[in-house]
């Protein structure tokens, strides 16, 4: 039963028979194998997803090539599909969302990280995290019944009156449209900006602040001119994360954007986003070219969020390494 020994296994001085050791290792081997299979399945399923997106969009990729991204005609009857209106809509709504959410988010993060006492900061952060957990469809619900009427009755006419000379604020006030979707998206992404920026700001070493204060700067000056720039890359990372979230948002957007593939300078115009058009037209896309064009849109969205998420994590990592070395997500 016992085979002649060749080498004694390394760490752990186990005074037992060889078979005990090999049993030990066997149990571990099985555990390692099983857990490896689970871990590998994550990789496999992700690869499969990318593969399916690629394979499922072969027709429009061959037929339209890069023109897919330049054309704005979306015509199922004549089999002409161009992604431009959806890319435009996605960009515009996300852009508006960031314009609103970034100042608000960074401001709130500064308050939470620099000013608020620990207990208050933690409590508020708790609530912000809860806000991040609210599902998209609930934002959509509120968007339909609160934001749209508000926009249509008050905000859009007011903007039109005050700033109507700008091309952005012209056109009839439908209530739905790019601006409305951008506002709803802004509310949805603020929590991400706040929580990540707050973490990043908290990780800035104390001596930075103290150095600035000891040189005679005001609280605000030390924050704005020293601490925030130090955490700049991480804050950028939070913005990218927020952007990635905004790009992929489906339900809230499709409930308030107007669902029309339009390209317009006016923010009051109804529009469409990539995610919204997929949600609306996927189950009914008769014809392979139609369906695969929608899948190609899904591929585009996937690539965009993939790049942004990657950049975001890189930036956040860089900042945290520069800081006290606390590892972030």
């Amino acid at each position, binding site marked *: 039963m016992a085979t002649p020994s060749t080498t004694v296994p390394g760490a752990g001085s186990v005074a037992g028979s060889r078979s005990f050791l090999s049993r030990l290792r066997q149990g571990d081997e099985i555990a390692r194998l099983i857990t490896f299979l689970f871990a590998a399945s994550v990789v496999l399923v992700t690869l499969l997803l990318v593969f399916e997106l690629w394979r499922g969009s072969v027709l429009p990729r061959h037929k339209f090539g890069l023109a897919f991204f330049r054309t704005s005609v979306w015509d199922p*009857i004549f089999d002409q599909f161009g992604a431009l209106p959806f890319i435009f809509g996605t960009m515009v709504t996300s852009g508006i969302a960031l314009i609103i959410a970034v100042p608000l988010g960074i401001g709130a993060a500064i308050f939470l990280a620099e000013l608020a006492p620990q207990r208050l900061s933690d409590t508020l952060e708790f609530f912000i995290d809860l806000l991040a957990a609210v599902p998209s469809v609930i934002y959509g619900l509120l968007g339909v019944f609160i934001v749209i*009427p508000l926009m249509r009755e008050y905000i859009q006419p007011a903007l039109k009156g005050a700033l109507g000379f700008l091309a952005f604020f012209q056109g009839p006030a439908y209530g739905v449209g790019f601006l409305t979707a951008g506002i709803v998206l802004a509310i949805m992404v603020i929590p991400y900006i706040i929580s990540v920026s707050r973490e990043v700001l908290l990780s800035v070493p104390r001596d930075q602040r103290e150095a600035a204060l000891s040189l005679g700067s005001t609280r605000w000056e030390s924050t704005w001119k020293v601490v925030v720039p130090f955490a700049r890359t991480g804050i950028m990372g939070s913005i990218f994360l927020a952007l990635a979230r905004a790009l992929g948002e489906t339900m809230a957007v499709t409930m308030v954007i*107007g*669902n*029309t593939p339009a390209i317009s300078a006016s923010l009051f115009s*109804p529009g469409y986003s990539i995610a919204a058009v997929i949600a609306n*037209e996927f*189950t009914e896309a*008769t014809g392979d070219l139609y369906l695969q064009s929608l899948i190609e849109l899904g591929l585009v969205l996937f690539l965009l969020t993939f790049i942004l998420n990657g950049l975001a994590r890189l930036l956040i990592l860089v900042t945290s390494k520069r800081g006290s070395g606390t590892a972030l997500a």
Partner: protein
Amino acid sequence: MKRMASMVLLALGLTGVLLADSTLSINGAGATFPYPMYSKWFDEYHKKNPNLQINYQSIGSGGGIKQVTEGTVDFGASDGPMNDEQLKAFQGKHGGSGILHFPTVLGAVVPTYNIRKVTSSLKFTPEALAGIYLGKITNWNDPAITGPNKGISLPAADIVVVHRADGSGTTYCWTDYLSKISEEWKSKIGKGTSVNWPVNQLGGKGNEGVMGVVKQTPNSIGYVELIYAIQNNTPFGDVRNSSGEFVKASLAGVSAAAAGAANNMPDDFRVSITDAPGKTAYPISTFTWLLIPEKISDAAKRDAIKGFLHWMMTDGQNYAEGLAYAKLPPPVVAKETKAIAKIQ
């Protein structure tokens, strides 16, 4: 941990057993146009046959055609009949066997609008409707609209045009009509369940979505099935028919539109009755069809569907008028009853 795992498995098994009882479930999807009718029918039929559930999801005619072709639902529903290409595609995916159209009821597509202080029915000429939807008539006080409506004060407001964002048989009927009465529409846009709409229009999902948008957006106009306008108490317009009469959508008007087709129904039941001749005919009327595959391999499902079709053409028709759909003309019913036998 182990105990929890086995408890979970037990619970799963139990729920699986408890819920997978003897109920037969049939799934269908498609048109939103007849959704109020179908949901009533399937509800009533379920009450009569508690072991049968017919689950119908209103995702639009385009969706109905697509999903029944893919085989993910047992039957489809559409108010735009499948064209030859789609029929071929179905055959291709089902080993050569085809799909049958069964008319269920008749309905009307009405132009419904939301203009402050205008609660009466506006009269629309075909040119006005085409112009509005082409984006050429942009204001409510345009002469093309105000002309036939002397006595009603229309505001000088921009028209908010609403269309279907999803693939829709209602769109098919609407664009079919517009193609018949407007050369410009026919060449520029054409007819179909999903068309390339002129810009600056709002999209709603389903008849419900369009109705919702119109209801909430002042100075808007949209096209919906009659019952949606009625159920939501929104005004809808009279449309001038090919004989020059302004007709308000009604059961009589729709039946009149179908009268000509009723006696000349093609064998596959695919027919268009828009802009039909006749003084009282409502010009934007349409049949709506259930799309049933010719070959249904599951015997229980096949019998259930056939049973439903028989009921639909007899007792079921009695529910139609209560929901503002017109009954099928008797010659059509007779022809359909014979066609049920084609389902194998």
